[in-house]
Structures are given as C-alpha cells and as structure tokens.
C-alpha cells in the first residue's frame, strides 16, 4: 500500500466518526440500517450472538451475499475475514469492499501472525484490547481501530474495560519523558515512531471506535463519553424486539452522547433488548483471539 493510499484509508475512517456501524445479514437488514442512520454496515452471514450459539468454525461470508448488500445500500460496506487469513482478505478486496475487519469474531486462521495489511489497497479495521495491540495492528497496516469488547454478548463490560485500558495506556505515554519512550516501545512490542506519535499527539494515529457488547442507546453514549469516536453495534440491533427503532435511537444517542435528557427520551419504549450473556457465563472469549 502506498503512503497516499494509506492516508486515504485513514481519512475514510475520519468520515465515519460520530456514526454507528451496524452488523447486517441480509439486504433488507442493510436497508433498515441505512434508513435508521447507520454510517456504514458490516455484512456477515451470522451476527456474533448466533456464531456464539452455533459454535463450530466461523469463516468469511459468501461473496454473493456481501455483493447483495453492496447493491442494496449507498453507504460504505464492510466485511470480516479471519485473523491471518490473507486470502479471504484478497477475496474481499477483489469485490471492492470498502473496509475489511480482520476480526476475532470469526475463527482465527493463524494463531501467530496477523495479515500483512500493508500489502492491500483496501483499508482494514482491527480490534484491540489495549494500546499495545492497537499499535501492533496499526504497524501491520490497519487504518482504523475498534475495541474488541466481547462480541455477541450484549454485555458492555469488556468494551468499557478495553476502552479504559486504551485510554490509560495513552495517558501514560503522554506523561512520559521523551527518553522513556524507547523502553515503552519495547514493552508494547511496537516501533518507537508509533509511541512517539501518541506522545506528541495524545491520541492513536487512526480513528478509534467502540465495539463488542453495545446493546442500548445508553451503552453507545457510555462508550462515546469514554472517548470512542463512533460505535459498532453487532447483535444488539437485529437481536432486539424492534430493530428499526433501536437502531435510530442508538444513532441519535451517539450524536448527542452528552445530552442525558435526550438519551432518556430515546431509551423509552424500545421493546426488548437482546437477552445477553454475562461475562462469567461465557465459554468462549473471542477477545483473546489475536494479540
């Protein structure tokens, strides 16, 4: 990937800021998401809650299904490939996907290496639990980061934990003396230049969204108040009682995340939220995939 292409890919993420990216499994769901105000959709065959329930190996979606969603909406379309599965990524690039999510939601194809994302022209978003993971993914060529959270649970606790860890990692780097950054780069297992960027700019070099467990307008606003620049909502919308209404409410809550009176109104009469699984009840921790 040329430097110019990488810049353009980071800039597309800038355009998504303040928005909600929704998981969809059919063209109809994609249209509902677009009408409700999604700034992009994530096309996948099964939402994380169903992947969790079904078990087994989870792979990239059928390209035909993804193309159907690309034809249904005018907003950017993202799709997931398995961690380390660069051929799945090549396929997604061939069908001109707008963003690839190298995602822990799917079964990893490589338990050591992530994809060399620098070799691709299309942009990548990757999950991270802390600053080190985020900078390692950026070093591999990711042009956007999201917290991992714990997908398909409807439990926001892990997204909160990961966002707070990211923030405290950034605060620590900001407060360091310049001569301490070299050791910090060694500890985080990332290049010095990325640590120096965080030290100078007080933020990641790419846009950072929240993901994994967001189910209500309040969850979305919580993540925004914690510093997320936008939110991914996976199972939370189409696993709920009234997807359209919930989607619209989450979009407005992200735009006005500091207006508690509006969020109170938005939280009324949303129907049933997704059932959810508590942290202690989870058998498979997807966030532990790919570090």
């Amino acid at each position, binding site marked *: 990937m040329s430097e110019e292409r990488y810049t353009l890919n980071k800039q597309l993420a800038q*355009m998504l800021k303040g928005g909600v990216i929704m998981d969809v499994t059919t063209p109809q769901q994609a249209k509902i998401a677009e009408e409700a105000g999604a700034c992009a959709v994530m096309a996948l065959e099964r939402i994380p809650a169903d992947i969790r329930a079904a078990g087994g190996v989870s792979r990239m979606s059928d390209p035909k299904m993804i193309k159907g969603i690309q034809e249904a909406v005018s907003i950017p379309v993202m799709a997931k490939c398995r961690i380390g599965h660069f051929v799945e990524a090549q396929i997604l690039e061939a069908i001109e996907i707008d963003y690839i999510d190298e995602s822990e939601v799917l079964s990893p194809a490589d338990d050591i290496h992530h994809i060399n994302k620098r070799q691709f022209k299309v942009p990548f978003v990757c999950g991270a639990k802390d600053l080190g993971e985020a900078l390692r993914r950026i070093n591999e060529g990711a042009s956007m980061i999201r917290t991992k959270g714990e997908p398909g649970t409807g439990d926001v606790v892990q997204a909160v934990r990961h966002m707070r860890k990211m923030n405290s990692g950034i605060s620590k780097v900001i407060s360091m003396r310049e001569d301490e950054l070299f050791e910090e780069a060694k500890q985080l297992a990332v290049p010095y230049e990325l640590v120096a960027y965080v030290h100078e700019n007080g933020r990641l070099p790419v846009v950072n969204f929240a993901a994994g467990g967001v189910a209500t307008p309040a969850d979305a606003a919580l993540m925004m108040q914690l510093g997320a620049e936008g939110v991914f909502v996976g199972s939370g919308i189409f696993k709920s009682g009234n997807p359209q209404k919930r989607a619209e409410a989450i979009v407005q809550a992200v735009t006005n995340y500091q*207006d508690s009176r509006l969020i109170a109104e938005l939280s009324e009469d949303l129907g049933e939220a997704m059932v959810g699984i508590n942290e202690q009840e989870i058998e498979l921790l997807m966030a532990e995939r790919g570090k």
Partner: protein
Amino acid sequence: MKIAVLAVQGAFAEHIARIRALGADCVELRQRADVEQHFDGLILPGGESTVQGKMLRDLHMFGPLRDKIAQGLPVLGTCAGLILLAEQISNDERRAYFRTLPVRVCRNAYGRQLGSFHTVETVAGIGSVPMTFIRAPYIESTRPGVEILASVDDKIVAVRYGNQIGTAFHPELDADDRMHGMFLDLC
C-alpha cells in the same frame, strides 16, 4: 466572527480546528437549540449524507437551517455537505435535502473506497489546491448563475453560487487553508 459547524456525524472536528486556526470562533450544531443562536456562517462537513440528512430532520434542525441558507447565510459544504446543498442528486432522487444550490450531483461518483484519490488542481481565484476525494461525489451539471471554481478531468468539483460554496473534495483534510479563507471572506 462565529461559524457554526454541523456536528451530527462525520469530519466536523477537522473543520473546527481549521476555522479556529484562522481566528474565528466555532459552535457545534447538534440539536434544535444550537441552531437558534446567532452565527455568521455555516459549514456542512464530510461524512455520510444519508446520516446527516436524517439527523437534520430527526433533531429538528432542517427547516431553520434551510431558511437561513435561503436567506443568504454563507455556507461551505464539503463532500456530503455538497450533497446536502444540491438541488438534485442524479442517482438518488428521493433523497435531496436543502436544494439551495442549483446543481445536479452524482453520489459516490468515483465508486467505492478503491476509487478514492488525492490530486492537485486549480481553484479559480486561489491557484493550485491539494484535493482529497473520499468516496466522493462530483457535479454533473449546473444552472445559470453558478460559478465553476474547479474541475478535475472535466468533472466539476467546486462551485460558488451567491454565498454558497460546495466542494466534492475535503479541504479540511489537507494542509491548505485557502478554501476556508475564501469561505470566511463571505462571512
């Protein structure tokens, strides 16, 4: 001078940083009450026009902003902002918004993200300007009275009509503040 920036979704922070660097004050427009204060100019930033258009209506800002623009409030619309201003959207006719700028735009005219690009081209009255196009529109046609400020490969990418400036590219993303300077001169 106080400039309002539509801050419901997209790259509004980049515009705010640019306007502040040029010495003007900024306010964010996120809901109806924000629109009711006085401001001297309006920026409609890049982002997703479908989201911004919906939020304008859901948050009850659409009518008052349209009236202000129609009454001559200086406005700069970039990428999605250009789409919000356009009278017609050729490939999405049911989704026109303010319709105050008499041009016909084509959404996502360069295709998906792989079609995004950066170039340098002349803007009338300014000179060579770096231009970043992200899943950008271009202007297919203009009605009389619209001044064409810039074209790239025969496609119109910047226009002025009265106090409205529309660009298909993102002047907020490149290190060149002259498009914002041109806008502030109107305010």
